[in-house]
């Protein structure tokens, strides 16, 4: 113990750590009816941590070439001890991370936490979600199986529809005119280098802003939050969050052991596309909407209209702190609240209906 104390003293002397400890000691989390929403950001972070650990482990055996990618994943899940578990957890945790991030985002939006002064936190969070979806899209291709190959072909094709930069974007994403081994190499680079780098920076900013500004209290809960004593962050909230994380871990273990992620059939670029090509579930609402649109709307290609609408919707969502003028004064407009619920209803219904196979 003496040694630890002396180590701490010498570090504090050089780095001035005492204020940090002081900050942590006084950090508090408001207590009210919607306090549960505070756990989801942390849960997303937990799943990200799992992704980093399992991702690094998979890198020990994975080979990012069209000839060997599928075989190396097959090798991981069949020959490497616990490889099946690591790979399955990586896949499941990716999905749970996105799910948890969506819950986090919608709770933040519906409780009005994006309002001034937290615009930057909202924007960085929005960007982090896009990065997470980028991780999902690029990671989906890496096992180089039939489904992922064709889903990537469709996904990049949609990106190629973007006006002006479309053809360039398509070639940039695919590393050529078609999805080939070059695409795999590229996506691997995005997945393990580019996206992690961007994510680290943005995540640091996101977390720093939360520490700086403290937890947001929703309008309706202000009185209750004042009446009830706040939860000290250390150790009470941290222990509660730890319990939530353990719950996440238990869920992952069950999913990975009982529903091991399938490997599928090795991709054959010359084979006809198999029936039932679907992207990851968090792209399903976009996928199905684009399929439902008529080929031409007002003389413009239907898909293009759809993409424009998604871009517009995303932009409104992103700019909510600015567009919702009342929110700066702490008075949120009913319109934006309604918009949030509508967006949630649209996303959930389309995803569930698509998973249930209602769409043709």
């Amino acid at each position, binding site marked *: 113990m003496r040694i630890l104390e002396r180590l701490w003293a010498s570090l504090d002397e050089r780095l001035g750590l005492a204020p940090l400890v002081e900050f942590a000691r006084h950090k508090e989390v408001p207590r009210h009816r919607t306090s549960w929403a505070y756990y989801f950001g942390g849960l997303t972070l937990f799943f990200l941590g799992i992704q980093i650990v399992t991702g690094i482990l998979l890198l020990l055996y994975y080979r990012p070439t069209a000839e060997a990618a599928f075989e190396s994943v097959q090798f991981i*899940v*069949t*020959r490497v001890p616990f490889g*099946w*578990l690591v790979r399955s957890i990586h896949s499941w945790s990716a999905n749970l991370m996105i799910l948890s991030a969506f819950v986090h985002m919608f709770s933040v939006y519906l409780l009005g936490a994006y309002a001034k002064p937290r615009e930057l936190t909202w924007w960085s969070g929005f960007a982090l979600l896009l990065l997470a979806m980028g991780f999902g899209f690029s990671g989906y291709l890496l096992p180089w199986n039939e489904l992922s190959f064709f889903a990537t072909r469709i996904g990049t094709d949609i990106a190629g529809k973007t006006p002006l930069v479309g053809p360039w974007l398509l070639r940039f994403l695919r590393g050529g005119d078609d999805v080939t081994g070059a695409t795999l190499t590229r996506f691997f680079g995005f997945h393990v280098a580019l996206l992690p780098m961007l994510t680290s920076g943005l995540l640091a900013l996101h977390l720093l802003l939360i520490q700086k500004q403290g937890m947001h209290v929703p309008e309706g809960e202000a009185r209750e939050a004042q009446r009830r004593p706040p939860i000290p962050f250390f*150790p*009470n909230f941290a*222990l*509660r969050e*730890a*319990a939530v994380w*353990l*719950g996440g*871990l*238990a869920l992952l*273990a*069950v999913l990975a*052991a*009982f529903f*091991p992620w399938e490997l599928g059939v090795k991709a054959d670029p010359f084979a006809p596309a198999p029936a039932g090509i679907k992207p990851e579930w968090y792209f399903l609402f976009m996928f199905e909407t684009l399929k439902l649109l008529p080929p031409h709307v007002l003389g413009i290609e239907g898909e293009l209209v759809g993409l424009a609408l998604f871009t517009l919707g995303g932009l409104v969502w992103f700019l909510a702190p600015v567009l919702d003028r009342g929110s700066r004064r702490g008075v949120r407009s009913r319109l934006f609240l309604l918009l949030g619920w509508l967006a949630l209803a649209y996303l959930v219904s389309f995803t569930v209906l698509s998973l249930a196979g209602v769409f043709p």
Partner: protein
Amino acid sequence: MIPRAVLPLAGLVLAATGLSAPRPATLGPPGKAAVDTCLDCHRSLDESRLSQPAEQAAADIHRLQGITCAGCHGGDPTAEDPEAAMNPALGFQGAIAPTAVPALCAGCHSNPAFMLRYAPNIPTDQAAQYATSRHGLALAKGDTRVATCTSCHGAHGVLPADDARSPVYPSRIVETCERCHGDASLMQTYGISGREVADYRQSVHYAALTQKNDLSAPTCNDCHGSHGATPPGVSSVSNVCGTCHLTQRELFDLSPHKEAFASIEQPACEACHGNHAIHAPDDAWIGVGEGQVCGSCHVAEDGGGQVAVQLAAHLGGASRAIAASRERVARAERAGMLMDEALVQLEEAHQALVLARNQVHAAALATLEEETRRVLAAASKADQLAAAAEAEIRFRRTGLVVSLVAILAAMVALALKVRSMER
């Protein structure tokens, strides 16, 4: 110097002049003609009996080689006047009598020197073979209902035998023979049932020919001969089958059955496998019970019957062992385990079973038992590998339960800790 383009023309003129000379009534080698008035005229005739041959002749291999109608029918194909063209004095004859057909075709096809000029790769002994065939023998006695050359190859519009449209192409021979041999009332006059072709259509050979498109699978002529078509005699059946099924034939020759069958004039392979309706063999055939092949000679009490029962028991045990292991391995595979080694063992077991089944032909109990022991050993190795995989799956489940208990305990402990702190 003569321009090159003129040379072929000159050749044609020479050939034409050669043909325009009167030909002897006995059929010599037919020449070539630049003009063929037979076709021109017959195509425009209303009566289909007369126009059809001309139309069919368009794709005829003989015609494509430059042999005109006159090659078979005689006459003068250059003459415009029908009277002159179909002048009997020039050897013209209309419809050719069935009895005359073999000799007509043989005029060229049995002449090696002549055939060498057109198709050096086809044999020239067809007429000689035909003369020995059931068809040929009957024809020689004046029976005109039997098949002659044209019955199978067609008369006008004859195609090479290796042309897939030809009626004698392997996949079409069945239909061709069936035209007569499927006619039960006609066949009964020769003491044949007429069911042979229908039976053959049930066989593994027909399935291989039509479903696997295996042109080497035997069809009618592979066992009966083509031109010398005749049923293989009792002594030759095993030779006929043995041309492909060599191993079984060799093993059979080692068996006590060979002499026993010969002494009672029982055909070898056919006794158990049948002749036309040859089905995929089954271990269940072996035995002396109802519908089992050994029972036609043996009873359960005699030595042969006892051997049969034991052969069946060994094979049955071996194939059940393989099936059970295969099922177990497949289950482990579906559960996500790598079963390559077990699959290798199963393949080994399968191969040993195939070899064991061969030994049935020698009725060699000891050798068969040795092979089935190999089957059992390999199947049991596969079984052990599957058991190891199952143990691994159980280990994973147990590991999961243990980890879950730890995680849940930690969650409970944390909840209690938080509660005790906030009390």
